[in-house]
Every structure is written in structure tokens, then in C-alpha cells.
């Protein structure tokens, strides 16, 4: 027998777990230091397990199931809003870029500049560009609002269920 490896150890643990004592094992325990130690530790742990099992019950299956469902909804919501967040970021970046590009041109520092800006607005190409950009922003914003309205909050979901 090796001090840290006895062939009888698994049999000993199985016997302790089942609560059935075997005469041969009792004899073996008297002579095997490793198994005696294993028996002592295993017995203590098994008694502790029985004690804690009686006192500390796990949460009920129903409770865990409901919590899981709630977490699943939150998870799905996070997944769905990830796309929205990207769209919001793109829209904001677009707005900043547009403002940076066009706002200085509209700033009335002098009547000449204002006049130039006004005349550029009347230019067909620029006007078409502004119209297209504005339409895109409005459409994008409407899309975002529509998508957000389709994602239910957990509170709304609960209300609907009840």
C-alpha cells in the first residue's frame, strides 16, 4: 500500500456513503493508515452534508424557473437593443458631422457670408443634399421609435401577462 493510494479507498467511500459497513473493511481500516484517515474525513463530511442538507434547502424549482425566465427576457432585450445602440451612435455621429460641416456656413458673421450662404441654399445641388439628409434623419428616427416601441420592457410584459 502506498500512503496516498490504497485500492480499498473507493470501496470504503462507497460503503460510508451507502451506510453499509463491511466486516473486511473494518479489518482493513485497523491496519491501513491512509484508509483510516480517509474514513475519518469522509465520515465527518458526510455527517456535515446530512446536517446542512436538512437545514439549507435550495430555492424551489418554481422560483428558479421564474428568475430564469426573467433573465432570459433581459438577455433578449440586451441583444435586441445592441443594434439600436449602434444606430443611435451612427445617427449622432452623422448629426455632429453635418453640424460641423454646415453650421459655420450659416453663421451670420457678415452680411456677405449670410448672402453667400443663402445663395448656396438656393443652389439646386446643395438643397437636394440637405433635403436628402433631412429625410434620412427623419426616417431613421421614425425607424428607431418604431423598433423601440416593439421591444417590451419587463414591467410591460408582466402587466400584459396579468
Amino acid at each position: 500500500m502506498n500512503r496516498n493510494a490504497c485500492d480499498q479507498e473507493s470501496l470504503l467511500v462507497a460503503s460510508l456513503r451507502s451506510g453499509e459497513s463491511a466486516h473486511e473493511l473494518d479489518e482493513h481500516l485497523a491496519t491501513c493508515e491512509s484508509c483510516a484517515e480517509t474514513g475519518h474525513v469522509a465520515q465527518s463530511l458526510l455527517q456535515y452534508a446530512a446536517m446542512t442538507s436538512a437545514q439549507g434547502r435550495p430555492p424551489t424549482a418554481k422560483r428558479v424557473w421564474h428568475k430564469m425566465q426573467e433573465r432570459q427576457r433581459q438577455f433578449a432585450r440586451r441583444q435586441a437593443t445592441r443594434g439600436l445602440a449602434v444606430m443611435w451612435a451612427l445617427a449622432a455621429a452623422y448629426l455632429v458631422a453635418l453640424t460641423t460641416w454646415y453650421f459655420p456656413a450659416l453663421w451670420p458673421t457678415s452680411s456677405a457670408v449670410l448672402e453667400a450662404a443663402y445663395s448656396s441654399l438656393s443652389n439646386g445641388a446643395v438643397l437636394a443634399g440637405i433635403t436628402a439628409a433631412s429625410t434620412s434623419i427623419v426616417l431613421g428616427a421614425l425607424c428607431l421609435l418604431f423598433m423601440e416601441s416593439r421591444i417590451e420592457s419587463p414591467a410591460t410584459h408582466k402587466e400584459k401577462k396579468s
Partner: protein
Amino acid sequence: MDEEPFQSLYDATARPIHAYLLAVTGQRDLADDVLQEVYFRFFQRQLTEKSFADTRRYLFRIATNLLRDRWRRRKEEQWPTGFDQGRSYDVDARLDVRQALKALKPRDRELLWLAYVEGMSHAEIAIITGLNEPSIRPLLFHARRKAAGLLRPKETS
């Protein structure tokens, strides 16, 4: 997975996993939280075709991994790690199992519980803990020695 099969799986497996978590963490609230997380992870992966033994092992493995993650994240706050060398355990009074478990490292607690309370083989323990199978025997031996030292009352001279 629907509620009914989940309930039967939970009823068949939750108690030993909860006891394992309680023994390794020593904290009821933490054990409850991790247990719920274990089933949520399992539920997300939808592994319904596994056998009962595999499922049980898999749940223990998720539990062990979650404990490791939490331990890494909040080492100081949550975990009583290792043996307090400054404190003398040369006590006349017998340390109870709870105190002995607290004095052990989390990995030692895991190994002892899986081997002696759950009666798992070294191969199963290796799968659950992510350790190499040949290293289980010496690690378990050292854990057992430490535990025996803490549990056994000091021989009075």
C-alpha cells in the same frame, strides 16, 4: 426546455449541487445565487440530449467554473482563502467540519466534497474541476491530510 422537464431535472440535481456550493463558499446567499446562475447557463445551452449522469456532471462543472470566476473577481471580499498561518490551530477543542472547511483552500474543499460526499471517481473530478486526472490523487491526498489535521483532535501529551 419547458417548465415541467426543468422542474424534474432541478428536483433531481439541485440539492447536491447546492450542498456542494454551500460547502465550498460557506455562504448561503452566494450558494443560492450561483445555483440559479448554474441552471440559467445550462438552460441557455439547451443540452437536453445528455444522459442524467452527464447532465449532473455538467452542472457540477458549471458550478465549479462559476465559483472560480467569482473567486478571481472578488478574492478579498468573498473567499476565506487558505490557512491563516498567524492563528494557532493547536486547540484543545475539536474544530467542527465547517471551521475545517473554512480553513481549507477552495480547491481542497471542492476535491474533498466531490470525492467523499459525491463519491465521484478521479476521472469525474478531473472533468468537473478542469484538472488533470493524474494530479487528482496527490491533490486529494494533500487536501485530505490537511482536513484530517484540522478535524482530528490534537493528542494530549
